[in-house]
Each structure stands twice: as structure tokens, then as C-alpha cells.
């Protein structure tokens, strides 16, 4: 929702980044205020996922210019775990399977690291169990998944639900969902979208990164941005997503290509 005079949570200015010397992000500008849902769309290889990973602090990407201010702090100077504790959450496109690490223990460690940052007392396993049972409802997850190893042998849908469960526990200030919808059947998509909708509030913000318009039928964005060749080439309201659905990306890409030539 767009809230009048709400605080700016995330401000990205002219962000450039590369991986192994290859420029991927070529000047991203984005401002996200509390309460807002932003969708970033674009064809494969446009830099959407890179953008999300750079925000989360993935070490494989080198930031070469620009700045990212998160709640008044320079996000780019923070370690990935510091960003997480401060309230940046990335739901992974491909959540990793980690055999030998119990899902429940992992959730508790993650939860307590955020609590500690907020100056709150860490929860013991008894209190945490109670809390997590409550949060399971949000993503309609079977409690049996808690005693299993983190994501090990989970289906695609179960992994994504587990990501949203983590989001529910960590209560981030800004949640970046990287292709959370890809590969989900419609039932799983509804559950995941419903979970995300329950977690959005006037105090936090959500960035949806997606290739498909379908997700936006279930999570309605306030703003839609189209990314191509490492830049946001156009922005609009939710109707832009519908236009992309019917016309594809090509018309925008052609415009962008002309602009590219024009700037040279």
C-alpha cells in the first residue's frame, strides 16, 4: 500500500555491480517506502537476481559504484549477516539443502540472531517451539518439516514455504523475494502469496522479483519496474504488469536499445 509521508526504507542510487569483471548492474535507481510492494520484472539475464543478491551482500558480486541506504545506514558496508539482523531478508530462488542441520534448530538460531540485534532476549527452545507452531499456520506447513534437515528432500513448493516461514519469524523491514513463484503449481503459489500478504504491513516493504505476471494476481504491487540490461528501463503502477503480460518485453527492449544507442 502507498502510505502518505511514510519513511524511506531503502534507497538505491546509481548502483553498479559486476561479477568476475563482467558488469551486470549498470546504474539502478530505486526508492522503497514503508508499506509499499514493488515488483521488479524483466527477461532472463536482465540482472534481477543479481540485484537481489547484491542487496543481500552475496560475496560473488563486486559493487563498483553507487550507494544503497537502508534506514539511514550504508547497506553496502555491512556484512550479509549484519544486513539480515538489521532487517533485510532475501527469499532465495533456489533455497539450499543442508543435510545434518535441523530445520527447527536453524530457524531458532536465525530468529535469535535477529532478536539479539533488536536488544531482545533470545528465546529458549521451549518458547521458540510455541512461536514457530503459530507461524507454521501462515504457510500451512506440516510441523513434521521442522524435525527434518534444512530443505533436504523438500519439494520446490515446500522449500519456498520454508523461506516464507523464515520471513515470518524474522519479520524483516524489507523482504526481497527472488522468483519465489517460479516452478510453483497454482496451489503452492496461492499458499505462498497468501503467506506474504499476511506479512505485509504499513511498517515494512516487499520487493518481488519475478519473471511472470501470474504472481502479481495474488500479491498486488504498488509499483512495477522493468529491468533490462542491468537497468530499470521503465516503471509504472500495477497496470504495467498487465501490459507486459499481453505485449511481452520486446517493445520495451527496443526502446531501451534505441536509448542505449542514443546515449553513446
Amino acid at each position: 500500500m502507498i502510505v502518505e509521508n511514510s519513511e524511506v526504507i531503502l534507497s538505491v542510487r546509481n548502483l553498479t555491480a559486476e561479477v568476475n569483471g563482467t558488469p551486470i548492474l549498470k546504474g539502478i535507481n530505486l526508492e522503497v517506502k514503508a508499506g509499499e510492494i514493488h515488483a521488479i520484472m524483466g527477461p532472463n539475464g536482465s540482472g534481477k537476481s543479481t540485484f537481489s543478491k547484491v542487496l543481500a551482500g552475496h560475496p560473488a558480486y563486486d559493487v563498483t559504484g553507487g550507494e544503497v541506504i537502508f534506514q539511514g545506514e550504508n547497506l553496502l558496508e555491512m556484512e550479509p549477516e549484519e544486513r539480515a539482523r538489521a532487517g533485510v531478508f532475501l527469499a532465495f530462488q533456489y533455497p539450499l539443502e543442508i543435510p545434518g542441520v535441523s530445520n527447527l534448530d536453524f530457524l531458532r538460531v536465525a530468529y535469535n540472531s535477529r532478536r539479539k540485534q533488536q536488544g531482545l532476549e533470545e528465546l529458549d527452545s521451549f518458547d521458540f517451539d510455541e512461536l514457530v507452531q503459530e507461524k507454521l499456520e501462515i504457510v500451512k506447513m506440516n510441523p513434521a518439516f521442522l524435525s527434518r534437515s534444512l530443505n533436504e528432500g523438500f519439494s520446490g513448493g515446500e522449500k519456498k514455504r520454508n523461506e516464507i516461514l523464515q520471513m515470518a519469524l524474522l519479520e524483516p523491514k524489507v523482504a526481497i523475494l527472488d522468483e519465489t513463484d517460479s516452478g510453483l503449481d497454482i496451489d503452492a503459489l496461492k499458499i505462498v502469496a497468501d503467506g506474504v500478504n499476511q506479512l505485509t504491513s504499513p511498517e515494512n516493504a516487499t520487493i518481488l522479483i519475478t519473471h511472470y505476471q501470474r504472481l502479481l494476481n495474488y500479491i498486488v504491487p504498488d509499483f512495477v519496474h522493468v529491468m533490462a540490461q542491468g537497468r530499470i528501463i521503465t516503471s509504472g503502477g500495477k497496470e504495467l504488469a498487465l501490459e507486459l503480460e499481453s505485449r511481452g518485453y520486446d517493445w520495451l527492449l527496443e526502446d531501451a536499445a534505441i536509448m542505449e544507442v542514443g546515449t553513446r
Partner: protein
Amino acid sequence: MSIQVSPSTIPNPDEFVTSVLADRDPYLTELVKQCQGLIQVIEPETVAWVQELRDRAASLARQYTIPSRNDEEWRFTDLSTLRQVTFQAVSEQSAISLSDIKSLTLPEAVNSRLVFVNGVYAADLSSVADLPDGVVVSNLAGLPITHRSRVKDYLAQHQGVQEVFTSLNTAGITDIAVVWVEKNVVVETPIHLLFISTSGNTPIISQPRCLIVAELGSSVTLIEDYISSPTSNSQSLTPYFTNSVTEIVLAENAQVSHTRVERESVEAFHIGKTAVTQARDSHYTCSAITLGGKLSRHNLEVFQTGEQTETTLNGLTMIAGQQVADTHSAIALNYPYGTSNQLHKCIVADKAHVVFNGKIFVPKPAQLTNANQLNRNLLLSPKARVDTKPQLEITADNVKCSHGATVSQLEDEEIFYLQSRGLDENDARNLLITAFATEIINQLPLASLRETLSVAVNHQRLAVT
């Protein structure tokens, strides 16, 4: 009970005496001479047959040399550092009190424990008050007379008993830890065989010997534990040498759960053999945990002597610094319907070096055998080294066999995933290392051991980072 051991497997050292020159390796001869302590029994009859066994093994050992890297079985493990040390055997008891070893005892096995210090039986540290009828857990001197003669039928009878370090051990038998479970007896209480080494000013050699016999339909859980004394100065640089042999005999339908823990000091040399003979329908499970030792070697050999046996071998080796840890396993499935599952995991840090050689033999008669083997290695430093060699020899044509070996490092993506949930890099790495070890540790039969070893793994891990 009936245990089939084919006649050809019973060693006949007489064959060798005239054919090979004795004292080929003065170092080995000296070790054999060192280990000629008194046999710990009272009545002469037992002393006589043990002495005879020792003499035969001694004359055999003196025809060998300490293996070098030219020896295929020792290609990756260099024993020249062992040769640089002169070891002496001890015969007197060490002054260790029960309170000294409090941290080493297992609450599940408080009164089902035998303790040996530097290879010498420590009666005051041992207690077997908690055991049901039909099970004998004792050193040689404490054995009922009836069992002394029965031990003779099984001691040093396994295939491969002529191997050099086994011969060295047999040549120096002064005492034996015996666990004898009678027909159809199910022993719920786990049995703890604890071998403590104290490190003084002179390098010592100790040669623990265990004999486990599980008669028809019996069941027992065994913890075989090698550790350096907590009272020893941890900074002590005095090396010591443990050369152990454990023979385990499973009669028909018997079940043995065996956990072997090696957590010697990092100055120790440890060469240990586990020789298992499995009659039909028996189940044997081994969890071998290796954390200690400057140089350690575990020879794990399983011989099937009947149909439909089940063998599970789990292994975890976690070493750092300049440690070398070598596991050589061999499973001989000679009858139909056998199953073997082996998972051996290694975590190698710093400049440590791990060796794994896993042989599985499935000859023609072993039809409808299932044999799986997997060796997974996690390298934590660019200088860490792994030599792994799965070795399946299959001539039966209707079997299911698989094997594999993986060598990997911690995945950056996994670390990042954990970081993105608020764990710092160090905690993320540690969590992943622990998780790798957990798969084996979680399968250990005793809660206290799972706990202790988790702590030991964490401790080892902290030393790494």
C-alpha cells in the same frame, strides 16, 4: 554354537619358520622383545597355551619388516616417523584414580566397564556389576575357568591374523578384554572397553587385545574407546604407540553393535585392527570415530561365513594440524543374500592427510548380494589431503553393488545462505562442518556418546578455525 572357520584360514606359522630368515627388521624385533611381559593368569594351563601362541606369533613377526610405502597396503601412509621412536612396554599399573577418569566414563555403562591403562588391566577402575546372567565381561585372569579354554578356540583365529601388526600384538599378549555373550542372551546394558594411555617421559607401547564372542541369537552393544589420559599434561610431546587388535565373532543370528572411538593424543601412533567374523543371519554394525593420533590406522575386516548377513560400517574421521588418519576396510561376502552398507566421512583441516581404502569382495557364490559404499570427504584447507580408493571386486553376476567417493569444500553458496539468515561467517562454517559429522554421530547407540563426541567434534573444529 557353531562357527565355521575354514581350515586354511587358521595360521600355521610353522610353515614360515624355516622358509624365511628371522630378524629382518631390527626395529620390529626390538618391539617384539619389548612386549614379552608376564601373562596375567594364574593357572599354568592357560599360561602355557597363550605362551605358545605368543611364541609362534613372535617368530612370525620377526620375519617381517615394518611396512614401507612400497607396500601396496601402506602406499599413502608413511611409517618412518614411527621408526624414529624407541618404545618401551610397561607392566606396572599406572596411578590413575577413578576420579581422574570420571570424564571418560559413560553413564549408560557405569557398571559394565573394563579399563586398561597403558595396556595393563586396572581392576579398581573397572566394574561389571550391572551385567545379566549369560554374559561375561572380564580380563583374562578374571575369566571363569570354563571360559578360559573356550577363549583358546577363538583367539587369533581370524583370517589375516598373520599380518605384521597383528602378529606383533599376538606376540605380546599379556591380557585380553573378553566379552562373551551366551546363546540367546540379549544384553541391554552397553559394554564399555576403555583403553587409556598416559604419557610420561619415555615413549611407551601398549597392545590392547579384545575378544568378543556373540553366540547364537545373542545381542550386545560394545563401545571400544582409545583415549589419552586427561591427567597427562596436554602439552606433553612424548609419543606413545597403541597397537590394538579386536576380534569379534558373531554366531548365527547374533547382533553386535560396535562403536570404536579413537581419540588419542596428537603425539600418538595408533594402529588398530577390527576383525569380524559373521555367521549366517548375523548383523554387525560398526561406527568408527577417529579424532586423534599423530598417525592412525584402522584396519577393519569383515568375513562372512554364511548366508544373509548384514553389515553396516559407518566411519567418521576428523583431523587437523599434521595428523594422518588411514582407514583400510575390507568386506568379504562369500555367501548369497548378504548386505553391506558403508558410509565413511572425513573432515580434513590444515595440512592433515586422510587415507581411505575400501575393499568389497563379491565372489561368484555371493549371488543376490547388496553392497553399497560411499566415502565423502570435506576439505577445509588448500593443504589438506585425501587419498581415497574404493575397490570393489565383483564376480557374482546377480548382485546390486554401488560405490562412490566425493571430495568437496564448504560451499560458498551454503555459507551465504546461512549468513543471509543472520549467522556470521564463522558460525555458518562451523554449523556446516558439524552437520557433516552429525550424520555419523547421530547413529551412535548411546546418547552420552553422541553428546561427548559432538563436543569433541566442536572442540576439534574450534582448533581448526
